[in-house]
């Protein structure tokens, strides 16, 4: 899910040591003394208004906050993130060659208007996701479906070309309860892909009735969307809020009668609203207020901290001298004291990280390769200089970051660290957000050092992380290319046995840390406030916002 890398994620710092990785925060047992129904109102902040209510086009956490409540995918991750469990599907089987996945739709599964959910609604939803005229951002995650790899070559302007592409996809519904997906190649992580919030059943009648306006965030369009999830949109005031109410058709009825989603993008405002009793949950705490919260007797009791699968790093442009020198990159990586960064700049929120796959997910390995060691960094710099890196080149290094006051503090800290250890004077450039995004793109890559970038797991499988740094990946801002890494990742992505996958990912990860196209910085932590009257909230490391793959509003309630 696109998240973490927003300016906000940095501004909203979070702290600490992950004691029990993999199992997140939780506040109170379920079912104890709930308040009467008229008091069952939960007010949360999702940061930004969703751009669309069409789940197939949603790509941000604040959009998934609606989509995940209104729709339900085939599967969902188990609370301990070890595997997926059935959601809209009651069971499934995978053929011996790993290519045919057969899902049985849960009997009694219904849309909010009472019509039963059939396999063809899933076929329709999956096809919309891969429809070039829809141009859904998460299409890429589904290109292992038979025929889908031709997506890029379809002429979106030709209706017949689009139709024949969609009809040729390996999606079928032999009977109303059976949804069959055929893949082009074995992909053991596909089970996770079927749990994504974009892969849901859609009512063709809803889409046909709205046409191009399907999913528009308007007061009247909300009632025209029927999902199979636990909630329906009961009220929508554009740009102000969305109210969700339980769907009468869902198999378990939520205790909450209203969930109001507000769009507050300023962390200080959010914090003030929580203190003033206008919000029941925050997304974080403004960095300067972290000590206040920890020391306040009332606020500290309402604090919820937990690990999150979100890692941050700094990118090196590996195609530009002198950063094409691996020793120089590693020298820069090893000359930054991350512990001091977490303590002083981030006020103790997050953990320093020199690893790629985050703590709390299968494949996490502590690594010392990029660990802070100033003496080794100096030796590496000397080695780089003997290999031809000149002082003039070093004097021309710039660090680029998207302008914001929170990021300014971080950037100046990095600058000072590099100067202190290596004696390098790296010039710091603050760049307007969209310009930064453009310069970072792999097709432009006009920078030396840029940061801070991050990645939040879409699903807890190594593939979601390791594919980032494969040659040609759009998120490989370092434009790093390593044949050995590419081969290892491809092998691991497709291998049938999990142990084979683990070994190959581990090798690839070590290579990545050693080659240092990026320097790992820290793993984020969720550091949020939740009113003491709110109970039954269980979050896992994969969840970003108040609701996620595991955390669900159906278990939450307001205590009397």
């Amino acid at each position: 899910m696109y998240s973490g890398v927003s300016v906000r994620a940095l501004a909203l710092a979070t702290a600490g040591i992950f004691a029990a990785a993999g199992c997140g925060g939780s506040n109170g047992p379920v079912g104890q003394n709930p308040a009467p129904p008229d008091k069952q109102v939960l007010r949360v902040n999702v940061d930004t208004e969703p751009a669309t209510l069409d789940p197939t086009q949603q790509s941000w956490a604040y959009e998934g906050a609606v989509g995940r409540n209104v729709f339900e995918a085939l599967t969902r991750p188990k609370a301990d993130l070890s595997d997926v469990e059935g959601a809209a599907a009651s069971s499934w089987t995978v053929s011996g060659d790993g290519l045919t996945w057969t899902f049985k739709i849960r009997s009694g599964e219904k849309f909010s208007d009472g019509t039963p959910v059939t396999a063809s609604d899933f076929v329709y939803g999956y096809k919309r996701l891969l429809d070039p005229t829809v141009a859904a951002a998460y299409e890429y995650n589904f290109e292992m479906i038979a025929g889908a790899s031709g997506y890029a070559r379809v002429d979106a302007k030709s209706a017949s070309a689009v139709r024949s592409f969609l009809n040729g996809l390996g999606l079928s519904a032999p009977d109303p309860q059976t949804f069959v997906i055929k893949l082009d190649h074995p992909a053991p992580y596909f089970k996770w892909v079927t749990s994504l919030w974009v892969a849901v059943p859609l009512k063709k009648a809803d889409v046909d009735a709205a046409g191009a306006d399907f999913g528009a965030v308007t007061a009247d369009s909300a009632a025209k969307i029927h999902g199979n999830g636990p909630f329906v949109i009961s009220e929508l005031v554009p740009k102000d809020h969305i109210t969700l109410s339980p769907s009468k058709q869902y198999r378990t009825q939520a205790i909450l009668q209203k969930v109001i989603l507000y769009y507050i993008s300023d962390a200080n405002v959010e914090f003030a609203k929580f203190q003033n009793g206008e919000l029941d949950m925050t997304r974080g705490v403004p960095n300067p207020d972290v000590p206040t919260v920890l020391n306040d007797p009332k606020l500290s009791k309402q604090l919820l901290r937990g690990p999150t699968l979100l890692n941050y790093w700094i990118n090196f442009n590996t195609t530009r001298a002198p950063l094409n020198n691996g020793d120089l990159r590693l020298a820069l990586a090893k000359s930054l004291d991350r512990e001091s960064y977490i303590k002083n700049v981030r006020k103790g929120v997050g953990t320093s990280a020199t690893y790629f796959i985050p703590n709390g997910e299968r494949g996490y390995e502590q690594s010392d390769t990029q660990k802070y060691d100033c003496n080794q960094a100096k030796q590496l710099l000397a080695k780089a200089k003997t290999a031809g890196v000149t002082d003039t080149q070093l004097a021309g290094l710039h660090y680029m970051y998207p302008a914001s006051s929170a990021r300014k503090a971080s950037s100046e800290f990095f600058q000072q660290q590099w100067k202190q250890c290596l004696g390098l004077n790296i010039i710091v450039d603050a760049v307007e957000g969209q310009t930064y995004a453009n310069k970072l793109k792999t097709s432009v890559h006009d920078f030396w050092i840029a940061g801070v970038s991050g990645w939040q797991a879409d699903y807890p499988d190594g593939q979601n992380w390791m594919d980032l740094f494969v040659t040609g990946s759009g998120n490989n801002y370092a434009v790093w290319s390593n044949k050995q890494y590419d081969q290892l990742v491809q092998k691991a992505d497709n291998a049938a046995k999990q142990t084979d996958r683990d070994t190959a990912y581990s090798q690839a990860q070590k290579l990545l840390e050693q080659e240092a196209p990026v320097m790992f910085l820290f793993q984020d932590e969720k550091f949020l406030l939740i009113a003491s009257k709110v109970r039954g909230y269980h979050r896992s490391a994969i969840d970003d916002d108040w609701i996620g793959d595991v955390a669900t509003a159906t278990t939450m309630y307001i205590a009397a």
Partner: protein
Amino acid sequence: MRRGALPFLAWIPRGRGTTLAVFIIRRLLWMIPVLFFVIVITFVLMHLAPGGPWDREGKQLTPQVINNLNIKYGLDKPLPQQFLTYIWGVVHFDFGDSLRSPGQHVSQRVLESWPYTFTLGAVTFLLLVPLGIGLGVVAALRQNSVADYAALGLATAAASTPNFVIGIFLIIFLALGMNRLTGGTFYLPTGGMPQPFNPFQVELIMPVITLGALPTAYIARLTRSSTLDTLRQDFVRTAWAKGLKARLVVMRHVLKNSLIPVVTALGPTFAFLVTGSFIVETLFSIPGIGRSFVTSISGRDYTMILGTTILFAVLIAVVNLIVDVLYVFIDPRVRLSD
């Protein structure tokens, strides 16, 4: 201003006999070329700015998705063609779809947020005019007195404190502080605006103060200096010499004349207030147009940028027209023709 430049406007009568109605029609027609150039300039600047609507700092869109998005919104066509298509749409009051919000029309998005911004701006304006002018007049009449220094000091303080400081200060002390102090009996929400077009909601208190501080101070200072100028005029001395009562001198002679520059300033002030403030709207969670405009610029939502700019241009043109018409009633020396 030269009026003969555009031949298609030549049929409008000119000269001393121009009536108010013709003046207004002429000015309204003039808005067409003005708007055209506003669109041209915005269109060019917007496309010159680095990055595009599909660039993002986080997870990148794949090239094939970007390609399909460009086709979906017509951004694959050459720029001149995109421009002509846009102009053709505007002529038919079709401002296109927001690039960042699939399926949503720009006109709808803009009209949704406009009532909030307008309510806040109009309430602020209605309060600041009497307050600003009152403070200015009192200060001028009691020049160098305590009242003068107090009014001037207040105005200077209000003008030099950034609005985000005022806003945060109000939230912390007025909303949070009072709530805590009174144990909840004094409860002021930190923001929001439940009903647009309703000037009587407690939610408006803090944003109105925050938004109005600077313009009130500006109007107060302007009124003060203008009133001081007028007080020194010969006709005021004559009025005093005639033995007129102070109230008559001030109301009939001083105030009427000293308000002319103030009225000139009120036009842009009103336009400034009703086009929204990003900071005030963000601080007080108001779903207004100032916030949406800044967001669409930073997100390079081309159609939203153009649509909002057109609305602002029309607003400013109309406000200026109203000010020009008001002159006629305030200053008999002003004629509507050249």
